């Protein structure tokens, strides 16, 4: 396991050797390596095959912008495709596999695509796959799907846990390079609450990759000293392995922390990643810069890398990409790579500097004014072809080529509010321009200040300015000495030539594609991007954007400033969707609300249904029952014949108190409640301001200034919100207070001819609940079971003699058991939401099915419930012409003929005649099998319904090709005179 390209020195920990596997072969590395640096140290140049052309590819960077080194990490359910090798911390036993190749990286059959490149240029899919039409779905799509993409998902559920988190600070410093460390130190010493984030596992940024000293010590040592001081300050929080992925309004930032990706697997219950919402009063972007390459023929061979990355591997990771390395540069920075290579004992094969006035080098001959015109080598670079200043040709053997085209400040986060970067000629780069998110400032290389001294000073100065804005005074401590070289760059975007030159290596976009876009008139940068897909890959154009638009600028004859640039969106780097979900996965997607009798119902083996956030018992199957209809029919018959009990705790309950409680209800309800006697309940209709029915329920008057309103389960929250709107925004003068009481009470409906008998077993004897003492629609505070406070309401949803009995929720479980025990002599039957639904349909009570937002009181046959004598929400607009038309919809009952089935959602048409929109007479809103009637019944709306009882019409379901004949009748199938209710 010798690491052939390992050097001495570096920041790795040789006392901790690690083993890993790539494409089935075992290699060695050390703690402090990334997977990328370990591959480089082991001489592995070929790491992938490109997206479209399946060309051999190698690592080009040492950072999060890496477009080629994308591998599948891990195995089994935790396998993750498209993981960047440069951002993968090495740990013992790491398993990685290359992607997008068959059968192997070295021999990939799909490389045939490269020979078809003339047909596969930018936008080729707009011009192909058109004929024959029959092939679209059956041939082209399956083939394209198989060929598309890079890595593959495991196909299994993600077993990892992801957390969300929330943090607050005065100053969020994004990036822990020299600028960020300097800023955090300044702010930390000033006592501000500081959070310092960096995507790397070790602070220092470029200092770790350069050989400069700072304040007389190595850059890495200086960074470590600063980190130590920051760690000692309680007001500073350091977050390594954390990427600021987005900037949102008012200082809200998203930071993705990778807490479990650098180890084999997180411990049980520990998150793999945490997505933090950071509330920052101010932020300072110190995100550094990304090096550009240069376009030239075959510039994508494995071994061609950013010059800064090459010396990064040498200085930080003690790894050289090859024994012989050439350098191609248009600026002074590229020369540093040559110097650092030589210092590490690596041969510098040549320094090719495109500038005629290139400086001399001490470590190798400089070919001034020369350019690289091509490269050669199988599965990796073997030599470069050079055209010298005079026109002569030269051929240099090398195993790696370090390319420096200049540096692009990482302005991305400044664009997240549609900020537009501005072109700065002297450094040939875009810097933050207008529209930087309010509260954010930028320091260091991220705004084009590139020297070490410059970044350290800028970080301090910007931090002081940011803190001053929020009233915190910070001191400008003495700055350490560091290099302060100026930027000297002469633009060279590409070397013109016939062969393809790559710009965006991840999406396989070449200079030829930019020319094609120009030719086809997709010249604006936004069109260039989308037509060629330049910059639309995982790095969002960090390695390709500026080159592409600079070439477009050349073609159009405009300046780069005039051409402009596309901007960037969150997330800054690829982020798993699971991180956004956090814990809201599966059953935990949203909170579950359980009724007080839930555990008892589960003991009975009830089947549950989700009703919004609630779980409600749907039916209670008995031994031997094999189909839900058996259970539901039994529950309905048992209730109507004797007595049944149902948990109705989920309905909203709103406690309303105050001198104006009655007047308040008069405004909120269409009918009148100030006239309701104490000890009585009344059905109320609540309209929206546009006249549509919003909700209904019964409201009880428990005292002079005390009402309790019920709402439907689904609308409890929205009705409460609406009532607070009326109270605070429309009638702040009214003396009324509201509070939700939904969870406080366990409430059970007890219904059927024997309901009173059951309750008399439990209600304390001093309370008279006889028919005379507690008539239909009575209510009151009582006590049960020897003094437990309770409330009793004589209301009926089922149409039977019925009550609702409420006890404080802590007694709910005990209460249902007591009701069941008390009701045993009469065969009391628990019933669920299905039986509840059947019975209310039989009785003709409306629910949310009927109150669908387009239905008025008049449609329900309840026009008289909208009082004309008082103001109420919705009354005026309910009187609009179209809503009071003679032929409006009217609520009716429907009974299926000939063993047919009424299906909710069906539309109603005359028995004979056309079936089209013009002849659509109405629709079915609710349907159920009625064991009482022995047929399928339903409720619905039909024009002129009140006049059409007895008529037979068609109920059609064209989507499923079904139809039924139904007879229109009264919606009250059971006990229309209400005798059972009042007995």
């Amino acid at each position, binding site marked *: 396991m010798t690491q052939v390209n390992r050097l001495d020195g570096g920041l790795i920990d040789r006392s901790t050797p690690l083993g890993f596997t790539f494409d089935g072969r075992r290699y060695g590395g050390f703690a402090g390596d990334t997977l990328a640096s370990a591959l480089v140290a082991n001489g592995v140049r070929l790491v992938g095959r490109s997206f479209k052309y399946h060309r051999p590819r190698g690592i080009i960077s040492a950072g999060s912008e890496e477009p080629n080194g994308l591998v599948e990490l891990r195995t089994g359910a935790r396998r993750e495709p498209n993981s960047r090798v440069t951002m993968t911390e090495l740990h013992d036993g790491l398993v990685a596999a290359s992607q997008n190749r068959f059968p192997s990286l070295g021999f990939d059959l799909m490389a045939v695509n490269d020979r078809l490149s003339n047909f596969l240029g930018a936008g080729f899919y707009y011009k192909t796959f058109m004929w024959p039409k029959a092939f679209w779905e059956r041939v082209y799509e399956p083939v394209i799907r198989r060929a598309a993409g890079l890595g593959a998902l495991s196909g299994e559920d993600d077993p990892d*846990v992801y*957390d*969300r*988190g*929330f*943090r*607050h600070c005065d100053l969020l410093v994004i990036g822990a390079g020299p600028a960020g460390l300097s800023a955090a130190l300044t702010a930390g010493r000033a006592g501000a609450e500081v959070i310092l984030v960096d995507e790397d596992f070790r602070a220092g940024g470029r200092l770790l990759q350069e050989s400069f000293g700072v304040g007389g010590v190595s850059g890495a040592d200086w960074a470590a000293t600063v980190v130590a001081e920051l760690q000692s300050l309680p007001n500073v929080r350091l977050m390594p392995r954390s990427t600021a992925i987005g900037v949102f309004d008012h200082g809200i930032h998203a930071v993705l922390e990778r807490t479990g990706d650098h180890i084999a697997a997180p411990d049980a*219950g*520990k*998150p793999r990643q*945490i997505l933090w919402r950071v*509330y920052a009063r101010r932020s300072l972007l110190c995100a550094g810069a990304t090096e550009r390459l240069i376009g030239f023929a075959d510039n994508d061979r494995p071994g061609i890398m950013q010059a800064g990355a090459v010396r990064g591997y040498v200085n930080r990771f003690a790894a050289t990409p090859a024994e012989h390395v050439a350098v191609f540069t248009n600026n002074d920075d590229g020369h540093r790579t040559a110097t650092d290579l030589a210092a590490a004992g690596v041969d510098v094969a040549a320094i090719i500097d495109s500038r005629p006035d290139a400086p001399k080098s001490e470590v190798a001959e400089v070919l001034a004014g020369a350019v690289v015109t091509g490269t050669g080598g199988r599965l990796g670079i073997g030599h470069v072809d050079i055209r010298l200043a005079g026109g002569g040709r030269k051929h240099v053997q090398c195993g790696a080529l370090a390319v420096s085209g200049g540096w692009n400040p990482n302005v991305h986060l400044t664009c997240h509010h549609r900020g537009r970067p501005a072109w700065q000629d002297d450094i040939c780069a875009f810097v933050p321009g207008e529209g930087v998110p309010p509260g954010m400032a930028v320091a260091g290389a991220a705004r084009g200040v590139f020297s070490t001294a410059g970044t350290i000073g800028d970080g301090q100065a910007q931090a002081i300015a940011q803190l001053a804005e929020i009233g915190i005074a910070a001191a400008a401590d003495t700055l350490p000495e560091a290099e302060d070289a100026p930027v000297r760059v002469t633009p060279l975007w590409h070397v013109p030539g016939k062969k393809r030159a790559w710009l965006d290596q991840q999406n396989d976009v070449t200079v030829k594609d930019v020319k094609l876009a120009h030719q086809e008139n997709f010249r604006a940068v936004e069109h260039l991007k989308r037509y060629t897909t330049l910059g639309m890959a995982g790095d969002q154009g960090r390695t390709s954007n500026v080159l592409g638009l600079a070439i477009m600028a050349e073609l159009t004859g405009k300046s780069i400033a005039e051409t402009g640039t596309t901007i960037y969106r969150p997330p800054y780097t690829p982020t798993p969707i699971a991180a956004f979900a956090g*814990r*809201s996965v599966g059953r*935990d997607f*949203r*909170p*579950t*609300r*359980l*009724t007080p009798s*839930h*555990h008892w119902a589960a003991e009975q083996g009830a089947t549950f249904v989700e009703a919004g*956030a*609630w779980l409600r018992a749907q039916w209670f199957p008995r031994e031997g029952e094999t189909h839900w209809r058996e259970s539901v029919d039994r529950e309905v018959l048992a209730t109507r014949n004797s007595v049944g009990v149902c948990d109705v*705790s989920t309905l909203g309950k709103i*406690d309303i*108190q*105050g*001198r*104006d409680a009655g007047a308040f209800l008069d405004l909120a309800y269409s009918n009148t409640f100030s006239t309701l006697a104490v000890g009585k309940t009344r059905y109320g209709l609540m309209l929206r301001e546009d006249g549509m029915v919003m909700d209904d329920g019964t409201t009880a008057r428990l005292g002079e200034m005390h009402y309790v309103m019920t709402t439907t389960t689904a609308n409890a929250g929205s009705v409460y919100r609406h009532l607070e709107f009326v109270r605070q925004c429309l009638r702040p003068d*009214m*003396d009324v*207070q509201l*509070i*939700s*009481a*939904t*969870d*406080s*009470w366990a409430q059970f409906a007890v219904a059927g001819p024997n309901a009173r008998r059951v309750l008399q*077993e*439990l209600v*304390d004897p001093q309370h008279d609940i006889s028919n005379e003492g507690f008539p239909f629609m009575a209510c009151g505070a009582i006590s*049960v*079971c*020897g003094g*437990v406070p309770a409330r009793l309401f004589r209301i009926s949803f089922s149409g039977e003699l019925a009550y609702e009995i409420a*006890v*404080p*929720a*802590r*007694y*709910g*479980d*005990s*209460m249902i058991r*007591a009701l069941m*025990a*008390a009701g045993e002599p009469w065969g009391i039957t628990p019933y669920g939401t299905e039986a509840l639904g059947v019975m209310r349909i039989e009785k003709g009570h409306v629910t949310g099915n009927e109150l669908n937002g387009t239905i008025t009181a008049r449609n329900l046959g309840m026009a008289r419930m909208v009082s004309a004598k008082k103001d109420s929400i919705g009354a005026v607009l309910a009187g609009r012409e179209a809503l009071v038309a003679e032929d409006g919809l009217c609520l009716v009952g429907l009974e299926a003929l000939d063993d047919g089935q009424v299906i909710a959602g069906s539309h109603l048409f005359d028995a004979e005649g056309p079936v089209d929109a013009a002849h659509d007479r109405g629709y079915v809103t609710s349907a159920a099998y009625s064991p009482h009637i022995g047929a399928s019944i339903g409720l619905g709306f039909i024009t002129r319904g009140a006049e059409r009882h007895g008529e037979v019409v068609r109920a059609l379901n064209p989507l499923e090709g079904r139809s039924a004949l139904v007879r229109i009748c009264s919606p009250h199938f059971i006990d229309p005179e209400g005798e059972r209710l009042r007995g």
Partner: protein
Amino acid sequence: MASLTQTTALGGTIPFDETIGGNRIREVSEAAMASLAMLKGQGAAFKKAAASRLGELPAPGHAVGHAAGHGGGGNHASTIWMGPDQYLVEGIDAATLAATFGASAAITDQSDAWVRFDVTGGDVVAMLERLSGADTRRMQAGSATRTAIHHMHCVIVCRAGGTDFTILGPRSSAASLHHALVAAAASL
């Protein structure tokens, strides 16, 4: 005649009490709670009643401890600011409050509206910052805020900065809130 027994918000007879990592999560089910809302034009009478029974009334974002009341088992008993002219009183039952405040306030028993978890330990904030956007790091004894925890409407009361908090959540969501707290404690 049958007699009724009580269950905790989580549906058991014994309140939940477990220490996970460095944090103890304890369900408190025996504390009375009542909502207290001033009625219009009753400011003077309300303040007088409050002074006699509760001492100082809390400002927005705060809770004030009061000596009286059946906190039960040494539980904290405070008056918590819930909204304009609205308070949640711990440790005093609604009937006692009604007797004190009379017609100056709307009083509603809330003992069964909430599930209450008291969380104590070395670094409760590390756990709470996985749950809510409230700035729990800055909260000191007497800070109280209404906020969301995993889409549940909750109240966070700080009893001692950094180490002692009460979390109230809707009783019907007790199991979901419990799960969220336990998972957060275990994830540290």
